[in-house]
């Protein structure tokens, strides 16, 4: 058996990646009641932004900064063109964003081709932890994820815009009646959620093979994470991502990847069914 430290590191690493991805999804769902099935493709766009910069000869770190900006901007456009028109129709947001995901995948195929691409490791060193080497880049990812999650929390819990946003989650109509510009907040939220996905995509790009279908493999566990965690709360994805990420990783460590996936899915379905609000969630207002 691997040392406990390595197992813990691996599991936290995966859980933190999931958290980074689930966070944007949860913000968009929580604030806007939009189920964004194109989130995986936003992730992919982030990764491909890094790829474009690498192809143009730019450094990875530039890509890391450019990806959230580019995808955030893209999210702003999508909000204006598509999402805005399907608010209040939760089921239709599923369909519209799913159509969007088809569209984005195919666009990437047309631009970058269907094949796999690779991002070079920005940090190839290893760090010794409890006597075992651990890739420094994985530690960097964990740091980034913690940093972003903390920043997001500070934003939501320590700023007045964050307060307003939480007000919108709690009671959208009342917040609007108090003069909170929900339209701008929607734009900002969707863009922020997209930017977070873009950042996540850029961060994980060196770990994986880039291909137009990479989104689904992350979207599904991230989705389960926010559903398990619960919806009406910013804290929920943390619990959900930790739950799903650690469960999947441990099951893969001690059983096999096949069982890991099944266990996560079945547990998630049970949790969603038995506690529809999620582990941390509250009953949402129906507005």
């Amino acid at each position, binding site marked *: 058996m691997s040392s406990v430290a390595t197992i813990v590191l691996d599991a936290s690493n995966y859980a933190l990646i999931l958290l980074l991805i689930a966070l944007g999804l949860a913000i968009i769902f929580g604030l806007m009641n939009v189920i964004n099935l194109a989130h995986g493709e936003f992730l992919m766009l982030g990764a491909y932004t890094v790829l474009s910069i690498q192809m143009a000869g730019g450094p990875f770190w530039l890509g890391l900064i450019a990806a959230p900006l580019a995808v955030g901007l893209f999210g702003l456009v999508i909000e204006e063109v598509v999402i805005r028109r399907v608010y209040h129709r939760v089921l239709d947001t599923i369909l519209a964003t799913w159509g969007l995901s088809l569209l984005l995948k195919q666009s990437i195929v047309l631009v970058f081709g269907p094949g796999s691409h690779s991002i070079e490791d920005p940090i190839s060193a290893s760090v010794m932890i409890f006597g075992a080497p651990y890739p420094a880049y994985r530690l960097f990812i964990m740091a980034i994820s913690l940093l972003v999650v903390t920043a997001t929390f500070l934003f939501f819990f320590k700023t*007045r*815009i964050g*307060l*307003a946003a*939480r*007000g919108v989650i*709690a*009671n959208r*109509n*009342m*917040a*609007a*009646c*108090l*003069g*909170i*510009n*929900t*339209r701008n907040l929607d734009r900002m939220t969707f863009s922020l959620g997209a930017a977070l996905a873009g950042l996540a995509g850029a961060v994980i790009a060196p770990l994986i093979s880039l291909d137009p279908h990479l989104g689904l493999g992350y979207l599904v566990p991230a989705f389960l994470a926010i559903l398990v965690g619960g919806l009406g709360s910013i804290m929920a994805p943390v619990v959900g991502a930790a739950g799903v990420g650690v469960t999947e990783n441990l099951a893969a460590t001690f059983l096999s990847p096949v069982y890991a996936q099944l266990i996560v899915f079945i547990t998630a379905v049970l949790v969603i069914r038995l506690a529809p609000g999620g582990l941390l969630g509250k009953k949402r207002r129906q507005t």
Partner: protein
Amino acid sequence: MDKPVLELDGISAGYGTGLVLQDLSLTVDRGEVLGIMGRNGVGKSTLLKTLMGLLKVRSGRLTFSGHDLTNAPSYRVAAAGVGYVPQGREVFPDFTIRQNLIMGNLKARNDDIDAAMDLFPVLRERARATGGSLSGGQQQQLAIARALIGRPALLVLDEPSEGIQPSIVREIGTTLKQVSAEKGMTIMLVEQNMDMITQCCDRVVFLEGGRIATSVPAAQLLESPALLNKYMAF
């Protein structure tokens, strides 16, 4: 006298395909405290919700302080200077009192918050408590303070006395009266509580069948029980 602060001209609105308000017209003068009365289901709350942009105006025109707010989104109505205290208060249960007040005006400074708390001292005493932990009456006071912190030109309240002990109802009435007098604020008060109406209002309109049936000075109300019987009794 100025132009009316609020003008509703031939408004029709409702839920789904049914119309609750039908061709309703109403003007409210600046500084006026207007009571709105009527039986359950005649459209009092619908009127306020339509004003706030929560319901779609099917026909007609809504003008406030010279701005056309027909079908404007709620936040624009609020930004134009309408403060709203909804039925059921709708304070944010997880937010502290202070946070609830800030929701009323994101740009509120400390002295604005202090001023709001001055109106209802109980809010200061429990400033760190969450909205959900307050009693109904305290929540009502919080909701009013929250609406006032945005310095609205028009304050609309939907049954503020509902489910609240009489002493607090009176306190609220006094405060409203005081605010209206001191700041020249216009108030629209949907209410069933006669004490509250007579305590605060200058004028009362009765709704029936989705439109204004009659309009009388509040003082006249006490002298004409026939009116109440006609529009209020079941």
